């Protein structure tokens, strides 16, 4: 995607599809009170604040705001918004701009094992965030081949690719990795058995 250079944060977001309505926000707070992440995971999570930071070009605040990185794009807020702002698209735009500026996603993303990936494209098809693409790459010992590649600006670490991959070549490495999930599962089965 080509972005207009040397423009403000708000202008750049408005240029990304879904971010057009950014400036329409009148800060009613509906999105925040609707949000599941705010309710279940992180009390300080606040999409309204992030939109305000973005609209006022507060780049550092917006890029360091965990709202940027935690949104799962469930779009509960979108149909509730009285100004019809596609909030998850705005948040996604902020995230892409942050990654484009070299910021690291503070949360884990899916990792590809390029030595075993067969480029079947299952993960590309199944990723709900369109974060995975097949790219041509020179891999040691395998030469120039197609492998899956994860865009850290789009990956939400949902693990669907991990579950779908038939050669276990794409995985979450920290939370919710295969071992932890299996451990939890066994623990749960054992407690049920008792």
């Amino acid at each position, binding site marked *: 995607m080509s972005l207009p250079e040397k423009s403000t944060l708000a202008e750049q977001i408005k240029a990304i599809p879904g971010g057009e309505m950014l400036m329409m926000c*009148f800060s*009613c*707070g*509906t999105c925040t*009170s609707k949000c599941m992440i705010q309710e279940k995971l992180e*009390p300080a999570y606040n999409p309204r*604040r992030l939109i305000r930071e973005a609209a006022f070009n507060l780049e550092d605040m917006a890029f360091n705001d965990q709202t940027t990185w935690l949104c799962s794009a469930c779009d509960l807020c979108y*149909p509730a918004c*009285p100004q*019809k702002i596609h909030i998850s698209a705005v948040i996604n735009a902020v995230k892409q701009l942050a990654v484009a500026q070299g910021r690291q996603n503070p949360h884990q993303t899916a990792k590809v094992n390029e030595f075993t990936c067969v480029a079947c494209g299952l993960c590309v098809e199944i990723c709900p965030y369109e974060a995975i693409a097949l790219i041509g790459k020179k891999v040691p010992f395998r030469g120039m081949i197609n492998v899956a590649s994860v865009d850290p600006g789009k990956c939400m670490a949902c693990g669907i690719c991990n579950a779908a991959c038939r050669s276990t070549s794409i995985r979450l490495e920290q939370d919710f990795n295969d071992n932890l999930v299996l451990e939890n599962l066994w623990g749960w089965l054992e407690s049920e058995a008792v």
Partner: protein
Amino acid sequence: MVDAARQPLIEVKAYTEVERVEGFVGNFKVTLREKAKYVRADRCNGCAACAKACPVEVPNYFEMNLAPRKAAYIPMSQSVPLIYNIDMDACIHCYKCVEACGALEAIDFSMEDKVVEEEIGAIVVATGFGHFDPTPMTEYGYGRFPNVITAMEMERLNNSAGPTRGSLMRPSDSKSPRRLAIINCVGSRDKRYNSSCSSFCCMYAIKNALLLKQMIPEMDISIYYIDIRTPSKGYEEFYDRAREAGIKFIQGRPAGITEDPDSHQLFIKSEDITLGRVVEHEYDMVMLNQAAIPQPDQNHMSSVLNVAQSPGGWYMEYHPKLRPMDSPTDGIFFAGACQGPKDIPASVAQGSAAAARASRILHSDTWQIEPTVAVVWEDRCVSGKGQACGICERACPYGAIDYTKGISAEVITAKCHGCGACVGECPHDSITQLHYTDAQVLAQIRTLLAVEPEKKILAFRCQWCSYGGADLAGTSHFEYSANERGLRVMCSARMDADLIYEAYRLGAGAVLFSGCHPQDCHYITGQIAGAKRAARLDKMFARLGMNPARFRTEWISAAEGDKYARVINEMQAALDAIPQDELKAEIERLKPEMEKKLSKLNQIPGVEEAMIQVDFIVSEMQNKAVPI
């Protein structure tokens, strides 16, 4: 209302529908359907004996369906006129009411609807507003949770003449609520339903909160809002009083309401914007302050009255600032919320203004209209020769042109406002505008471009906005190029393509097509027609290979004198940038094209004769016999 009914010169026609409105200012013919009440107005004395005898009970819409009424009813005890009515949809024909009425014999089941036609001089429309039904907003649970009520239901529940005789109780268990939440902007300022602000609900919420606080001082009342709008005199002080009384104002629009199904207690989760934190509170009852929307039959009525609607569906006024009580049709006026949501003082002011405007018509024998009305040359109109056309009828913003295939178009002079949109649009030049006839405007163009036309900027200005803008530039001493030559027409819709071709045929350096900003047009949609034509011309000139600097379209208001001066100066600079020989070559190249387009110009009545005179003056000017 009682006073109005007693005034001998006022006739109240209750339960009557307007079916058709024909004619024009001072001479409307209105068809009314007087619906059968099945009670004779000349005999009924309003004793209510029929209602007492009636065994049928149906919900009373006046009480927001919270209380019953009989099939023989009046909606409320203060009804004017005090004549009972039998609801035939509910009546079971037991005739107990006839018995109860006795010797008065007021009840007459043989009554039928009566259609009458009346001669009316002026019409004041005061049909009010409708209420947004919050049922589609499932997040607030209206209709599912018994203790979520609308503002209008609250109005009846705390009214001493209402179903609870003024003691507020919640619907689920009839207990008096101790914690009440009011949610503002339900369905208003919401692009999913109505994007506009309903204007009076903030004050309405504060009024209800203060009223309830007076009734039940220990009640805890919170108002959830996006913004509180208290713009008029004394309103902010009222808001202050509410704060002082301990009413809590929470900035934040709740995303939803949840209910405990056993106790029917309600929980509202919202972000408290000022705290920046999500808070959840418990309430006994929630009032939804729903949006004011146009009446459900407003679309129908607008076609009956032949008045346009604004984008939100409200009736459209003649001018939003200068004539807010007039409709675009002379003789029809608006009072109150049918023209847009407004509170009581504003409605009263508008109503009084409308009444004064209407009485002006009723007290005059003649009615003056703009002299610049349109006139059809019947022998030129193609419709008279059997061709299908009707372009003028579609162009007219006022519905003042009658088009029937086979007879030439006819202008209803009393309805014409003189914008000239029909003249600009007519492809056969068979319609003209008095005082702005083609001959007159062409004569002006020729004299303005008599000498050194390639150096001139011919500016077409509309009477109301860009002409005023140019005036302001002059009185404010904003300097602009002396090569500009201004030409006034009533509206940008009158700026006929022929006039612009003529300017280029004469070799004008540049042409400015200017008018009002779209929302400011004095002729409803005149500017839109003008803008469309300008865009079309722009495209055509580009195709002909004309330098884009030579044609410009600008919308300039009467307050934008600086903009007018800037536009002219920019045009002059752009014109100067074209090398002289190139410009002259282009003018020569385009001349035959323009002549081709103007080949039928001399056939327009009056043009040829006028041009002979004008050409004489032009030659005198060119010989410097008369001052330029």
